[in-house]
């Protein structure tokens, strides 16, 4: 899966979970501050991405922006 494809998937899941428009979910968006997510939202987003992408995700505190999520998934899938 390319990074561009991962980004599209992440944008779709975040938009649905946080009830925002996909166009707001830009790579530089801070998930907590710009998209008003709390920890439960982030857990749910990660859960959904795990299920949809069939990959085990175990993120740490370094996930701050949408791009962080994409990079993390890309790294995890490469292993």
């Amino acid at each position, binding site marked *: 899966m390319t990074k561009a494809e991962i980004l599209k998937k992440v944008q779709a899941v975040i938009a649905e979970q946080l009830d925002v428009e996909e166009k707001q979910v830009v790579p530089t968006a801070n998930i907590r501050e710009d998209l008003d997510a709390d920890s*439960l939202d*982030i857990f*749910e987003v990660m*859960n959904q991405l795990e299920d949809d992408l069939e990959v085990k995700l175990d*993120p740490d505190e370094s996930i701050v922006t949408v791009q962080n999520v994409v990079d993390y998934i890309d790294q995890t899938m490469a292993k």
Partner: protein
Amino acid sequence: MAYRIMTTASAVPHKIVTNDDLAKILETSNDWIESRTGIIERHIAVDENTSDLCYRVAEKLLAQANVAPEQIKAIIIATMTPDYYTPATAAIVQGKLGATHAFAFDISAACSGFTYALSVARGYIQLPTDYVLVIGGEVTSKVLDWSDRSSAVLFGDGAAGVLLQGTPEKADGWYGEQLLTIGRQSEQLTSGYTPVTQANFGQVGQTHIQSTFFQMAGQAIYQFSTRQVPRAIEAAVLAAGLSLDQVDHFLVHQANARLITKMASQLNQPLTKFPMNLQHYGNTSAASIPLLLAEQVASGKIKRGDCCVLCGFGGGLTIGIQIIQY
């Protein structure tokens, strides 16, 4: 011999702490707490310990059922915040009640404690005259770090329970149960650790045991709650020969409103079958399910003959499911 629930009761501390009260001591707000968790207020013990709350429940249960303390066969209390390591909270309650023929002990299974205690209680019920008190009680405020806003806002104190009686009708009152433990994840939800150190030996004048406050690995517990718990509920219901649609009420541990909403959707059941009272009590751990049961019975929302799934989940990690007919 099955059990039937003769009566239910609850007891909570008189002091109510609102979200606004918490906002005075923590960097938080009513809006944040309410929207994230569903909690508006919780009861916090000031001058009552776990045994006091449990004793009040026991007194009410006996009075409501017109059963004398001497008739009680066993008292089982589920708690993770006992008054003491020893004696058991249940022993203290036995003494105060004058339940001189009852044996008594505590069960430690965190938020699954009440459902585990019901499982144990069933084994003691062999005759219609076997009366067993099963109570879940907590003073979680004893183990909270009141400077940690991520956990301090979630919990509350309280106790509730049931008086069980043997019933001669076969399988009346009880359809099935499932108890699960995932010990390899035990580090993900902890409270009250007592370490062994060099200083334990020969420590003169040691007056307290070190302990750590409640802590939880959020993502892992969220996954556990929204994946394994609904799966376990479905498996238990099917194993009992029922379908999810036949269940009238799902009384699940009152951890968080959004979690419960998610569980309902995972099970494809209407949210109306998942009553909640966490708005007014927070997470009361082992007291959570019986507190909800007692309120739902008192308000008439749970009626005799209703099929209820009681599901506790939490520290252990544990899941406890009892499928009963009220």
